[in-house]
C-alpha cells in the first residue's frame, strides 16, 4: 500500500524549478530514505508535502487524500507530521510544553478551558524519559543543547500520534549516543507500522534504517530501490557520491 505519493509534482521559486514533474511513492509501514546532493529538492518536497509551500503543478496524495489545497494545520488530521532540518522548537516555552503542544486540544474555545491533562502528562513523561529529557522538562527549549533539541523535535513529532513522519536530517551534527537514541526511535516507529520518510546524508544510517531509498537530483527522480541497489547504481555514484 502507498502511504504518500507525488504525481508529476512541480514547484517553482521565481523561475527556479525546485521540483520537476516528480512522481514517487512512499510505501506504508516502510522507512524510505530520501537522498540527493544539496539543492536537489528534498527539503522542498517535505515543505510542499506538509503544506508550508504551495504546489505549482501536480499533486500529492496521502492515504488516498489529495493534499493540494490543504493548509498545514489540516495535514496533521490526515495523519502526517514532520520535523525540521533547523530544529524549530518553541524556544521560550518549556521542554514539557513543547511536547504538550503536539498533544493538546486544537480548537481555540476548547483549548481555553483545557489545562495540563494527566493522560497527556503521563505520556509526555514516558516519551521524555525515553530520550533522557525528563530531567529537563521545566527548562526552556532555548536552554537545550543542539543534540537535545534534535531529540525533543523528533519526540514532539512522534507525540502527535501520526501515521506518516517526514524527518528532515534528524541525525545531522549529533553525537553517537544521540544518533543511537533517534535510530532506536525510528526502528520502534517502523515496528508499529508507521511510515517514515527520512532525509539523511549518512549512507550507513540509510542502509541500517531504510527499506527503500529514493535518490533525487535537480528536483527530479534519479533512482530508487533498496539501499544496496542504489549504492551500486552508476548514475547515483556519479551524481551524488561523485564517483
Amino acid at each position, binding site marked *: 500500500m502507498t502511504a504518500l505519493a507525488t504525481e508529476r509534482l512541480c514547484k517553482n521559486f521565481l523561475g527556479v524549478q525546485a521540483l520537476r514533474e516528480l512522481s514517487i511513492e512512499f510505501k506504508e509501514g516502510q522507512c524510505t530514505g530520501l537522498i540527493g546532493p544539496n539543492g536537489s529538492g528534498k527539503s522542498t518536497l517535505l515543505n510542499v508535502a*506538509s*503544506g*508550508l509551500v504551495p504546489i505549482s503543478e501536480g499533486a500529492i496524495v496521502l492515504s488516498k487524500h489529495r493534499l493540494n489545497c490543504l*493548509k*498545514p*494545520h489540516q*495535514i*496533521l*488530521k490526515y495523519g502526517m*507530521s*514532520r520535523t*525540521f532540518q533547523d530544529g*524549530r*522548537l*518553541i*524556544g*521560550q*516555552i518549556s521542554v514539557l*510544553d513543547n511536547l*504538550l*503542544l*503536539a498533544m*493538546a*486540544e*486544537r480548537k*481555540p*474555545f476548547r*483549548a*481555553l*478551558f*483545557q*489545562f495540563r491533562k494527566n493522560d497527556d502528562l503521563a505520556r509526555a513523561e514516558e516519551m521524555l524519559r525515553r530520550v533522557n529529557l525528563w530531567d529537563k522538562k521545566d527548562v526552556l527549549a532555548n536552554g537545550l543543547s543542539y543534540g537535545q533539541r534534535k531529540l525533543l523535535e523528533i519526540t*514532539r513529532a512522534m507525540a*502527535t500520534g501520526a501515521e506518516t513522519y517526514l524527518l528532515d536530517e534528524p541525525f545531522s551534527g549529533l553525537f553517537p549516543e544521540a544518533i543511537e537514541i533517534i535510530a532506536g526511535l525510528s526502528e520502534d516507529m517502523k515496528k508499529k507500522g508507521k511510515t517514515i520518510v527520512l532525509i539523511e546524508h549518512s549512507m550507513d544510517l540509510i542502509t541500517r534504517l531504510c527499506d527503500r531509498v529514493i535518490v533525487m537530483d535537480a528536483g527530479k527522480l534519479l533512482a530508487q530501490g533498496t539501499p544496496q541497489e542504489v549504492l551500486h547504481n552508476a548514475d547515483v555514484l556519479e551524481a551524488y557520491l561523485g564517483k
Partner: protein
Amino acid sequence: MDYLINLSILFSIYGILAVSLNLLVGYTGLVSLAHAAFYGIGAYAAALLMTKAQMGFFPAMLCGMGLSACAALVIGMVLSKFRGDYYVIASAGCTIIVYNILMSWREVTNGAIGIFGVPRPAIGDFVFTSNFAFLGLAFAFLVLIVLAAQLIASSSFGRVLKAIREDEDVARVFGYRPLHYKMLIFVISAMMASVAGSLFAVYLMFIDPSTFKLVENVFLLAIIILGGLADNRGALIGTLILIGLPELLRFTGFPTEIAAQMQKVVYGLLLIVLMFLRPQGILGKFRI
C-alpha cells in the same frame, strides 16, 4: 489619603489595560496600537447608555464589552492581513479612526466637549459615590481580569499563543489555526480594555475623546515593556511604576517655575536608564 485612593483607582484601571494588552503583545506577539480604541468604545458605551438610556452601570458595561467585541472582530480581521511593522501601523490607524469618530460624531458623542454627568455605579440602593468604595469596585475588576489572564496564560490556549508568537509555521504544522487563536485573543483583550473604559467613565463622571488618542497606546506599551512582556505580574509592576513615578517626582524639590518640565525630563531619563539596565523588562520573559 484621598490622593492615594485616586492613585490606586488609576492603578486598577491602567492595570486592567496593561494586563489585557500584555495578552496580545507579550503572549501572542501582536504589537497592537488599537487598544485605546477599545478603551474608548467601553468608556463611551457606558457613558452614553447611562446618561441617555438611564441604564445601570453593569448592563452598560456589558453592552460596551459586546460592542468592543464586535469592533474587535472587524478590526482583527483587517489586521490579520498584516505582519510585523505593518501590523503596528495598521493598528494605529484603528485608534485614529475611532478617535476621530468620537470627535466628529457630535450628535451622539458631543464631540470634543465630551459627556458630563456620568453617574457612579450602583448595586441596589448602594451607590459607589465615595472614591474609597469605588476603589473597591475597580480593584475587584482588576483582580478578576488578572485571574482571567492568568488562566488564559496557563491553559493550552496560552501555550498555543506563545507558539504562534515564536513560529506560526510550527503551530500550523501541529494542527493549530493561528488566525482563529489571534482573533479570539484579540476579542478577549478588547473586551477587557472595554471594562477599563467603562470604569474610567464612571470614575471621572466625565469623558472626552482626548483620553483615547494614539499616544495612550504608547503609554500602555511602555508599561508592559517596562514591567516585562508575557508576565501578568510584570504588567502590574509596570503600571505601578509608570503611574506612581510621576507622582513621586512631585517631591523632587525643583523650583516651581520649571518643576513640571523637569519632572517629565527626569521621568524620561529614568525610563531610558531602566530600559538600558533591563531591556527585557523587570519580569520579562519575552522581547519584541
